[in-house]
């Protein structure tokens, strides 16, 4: 059994690990450091100990023949007859990952009457596109989509499977990964292939400004999901490749416990993902009433208002307006953050924005690490002045007309 081991000889009871533990699982009892049973073996304490007094035993498992597993499989997401951008983003990342290796990139596309979609995919530098086209796949149904996925993986034996972090992805990825008794890292913000050809999966952890670097050393395939708009899209090539493979699933595997009775498109309001300019309010706002400043700015700039999670939790902003890992990923022309500290979760959701202007009273604020224009100042002083100036500009423009 694995556990956190404490070397009492080396431990000087400095308590650095105690304040570092996100779970409150370390304690000093009778002048000795002890671990409680709520330790999750996350390893945060290991990095904080300057005396090498802590370690976690990890076992190597030699049973798996990893050489049998190679290449990358990308799950193609489509909706209303269109391939979703996240698919091209995953292909783009996969093509970068395989550079300098013998790995190739493959795609899996499942649906009904999807020949046109498959044709579009042949314009990407993918070795083969496996297409499963059948009436049974008209709607997403977890059980039979899982069957398809298993079929494809059993044939290809990919080392890595990449899936978009969409609703369908969040449903299918853990199901398929579990069925192969393998691991899945959700919502990765970066993926790297190390020298052992292992997929290094990086994602924010523990809700703080910390990143976790995760590997799946002894299981294959290695599964990862990536949220839309995080990676860069692959380039479309000029002439299509002849790379479509039509696949069939055994009739028995087409039987689903799920029956779709009705499907309705919900009206899509223009959301913060569609805005060209976003004005973001954070916890720098002291009172809900003060949010008029961001509303007004958004109106003057023809933009929209968005928010960090802190204000959503307070009930000052609706969830649809939340940017970040547990909210929406946005990529506007310009984003102005007002009183937002810049947690990893927040920045993950907006750092690819074209122009980032950050206003924060604290000149050491993390948000400044990604801002194109960093402003150390008080929103209560700057925003009213900015609003006033923009109104003046508007007036001038109106007078001219």
């Amino acid at each position, binding site marked *: *059994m*694995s*556990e956190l081991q404490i070397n009492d000889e080396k431990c000087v009871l400095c308590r650095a690990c105690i*304040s*570092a*533990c*996100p779970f*409150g699982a370390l304690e000093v009892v009778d002048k000795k450091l002890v671990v409680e*049973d*709520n330790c999750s073996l996350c*390893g*945060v304490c290991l*990095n*904080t100990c300057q005396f090498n007094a802590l370690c*976690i035993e990890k076992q190597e498992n030699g049973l798996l023949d990893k050489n049998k597993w190679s290449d990358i499989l990308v799950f193609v997401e489509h*909706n209303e007859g269109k391939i979703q951008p996240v698919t091209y983003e995953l292909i783009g990342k996969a093509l970068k990952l395989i550079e300098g290796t013998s790995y190739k990139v493959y795609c899996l596309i499942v649906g009904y009457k999807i020949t046109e979609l498959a044709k579009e995919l042949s314009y990407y530098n993918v070795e083969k596109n496996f297409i499963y086209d059948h009436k049974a796949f008209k*709607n997403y149904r977890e059980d039979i989509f899982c069957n398809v996925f298993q079929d494809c993986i059993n044939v290809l034996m990919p080392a890595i499977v990449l899936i978009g972090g969409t*609703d*369908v992805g*969040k449903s299918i990825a*853990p*199901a398929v990964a*579990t069925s192969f008794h*393998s*691991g*899945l890292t*959700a919502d990765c913000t970066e993926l790297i292939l190390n020298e052992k050809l292992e997929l*290094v*999966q990086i994602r924010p*952890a*523990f*809700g703080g*400004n*910390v*990143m*976790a*670097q*995760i590997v*799946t050393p*002894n299981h294959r395939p290695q599964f990862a999901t990536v949220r839309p708009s995080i990676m860069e899209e692959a380039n479309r090539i000029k002439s299509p490749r002849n790379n479509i493979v039509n696949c069939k699933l055994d009739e028995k595997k087409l039987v689903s416990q*799920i029956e779709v*009775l009705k*499907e309705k*498109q*919900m009206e899509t309001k223009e959301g913060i993902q569609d805005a*060209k300019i976003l004005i973001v309010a954070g916890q720098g706002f002291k009172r809900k009433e003060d949010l008029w400043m961001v509303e007004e700015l958004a109106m003057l*700039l023809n933009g929209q208002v968005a928010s960090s999670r802190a204000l959503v939790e307070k009930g000052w902003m609706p969830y649809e307006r939340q940017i970040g*890992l*547990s909210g929406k990923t946005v990529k506007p022309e310009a984003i102005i953050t007002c009183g937002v500290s810049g947690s990893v979760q927040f920045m993950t959701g907006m750092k690819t924005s074209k*122009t980032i*202007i950050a206003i924060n009273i604290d000149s050491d604020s993390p948000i400044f*690490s990604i801002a*194109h*224009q960093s*402003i150390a*100042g008080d929103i209560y002083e*700057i925003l009213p002045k*900015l609003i006033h100036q*923009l109104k003046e*500009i508007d007036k001038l423009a109106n007078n001219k007309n």
Partner: protein
Amino acid sequence: MKIAICIKQVPGSNELTMDQEKGILQREDGRVKMNPYDLVAIETALQIKEKYKEVVITSFSMGPKRAREVILSSYAMGVDQGVLITDPKFIGSDVYATALTLSKGISLNEEFDIVICGRQTTDGDTGQVGPAIAEHLGIPHIYGVIAIDKIEEKHIFLSQQIENKKISLRVKMPCVLVISKEAYIPRLPSLKLKLEAKKKKIKIMSFEDLNDSDIRKFGLEGSPTQVEKIYFPNKSKKETLLSGNANVIVDAIIERLKGEKLI
């Protein structure tokens, strides 16, 4: 009808800060609470119980001993019985191992018709445990459930939201439901039930009770994913930091927006 719900205890505050001088993580406080997404799972089960006859709800939680608190909270909302799956051997479980442990606990207790999970937790935030439990149990799951429409003898009728589509489904039971946060508004615990909860028993299951002698399937060893390293992201170099006179700052912002042709 038998309903199982999976609930988790999470840190009360998610704020982790860094002690800049020592370069170490600092936890704000040691308080804990029930994962808010799981409150919706409990509410869903309670709503079914109010509408249909002979419904028994069991809550399952895996965690340290103090996680019994969340089972007590579920009693205070109206859940009938609870099981705490706890053992130091489960420490270090990733999603795969957690879901395996929970699914063993669930299937060893009773034959459940419906298993309900919250959509995600506020600490791990991976949102995978529900689908993984379903796979371990060998039954289908429905992700993003926004309403229970009707229950017949062998089937449950549901509404599901997938991206911007609302889908009505008829699903054969048993199945796992992953509930959206928007589905139902969780009720507050009642004082009467809260007092009664204290007297109610909680069934405890440890590794020995899981009918599986292979310890390598559980805890850190049973976890396919391993955390190699935890680190603070590098602060990249700052571009010029503007401070001081607010008028100068405002002009700079306007110039920047003009430069991007946004005004």
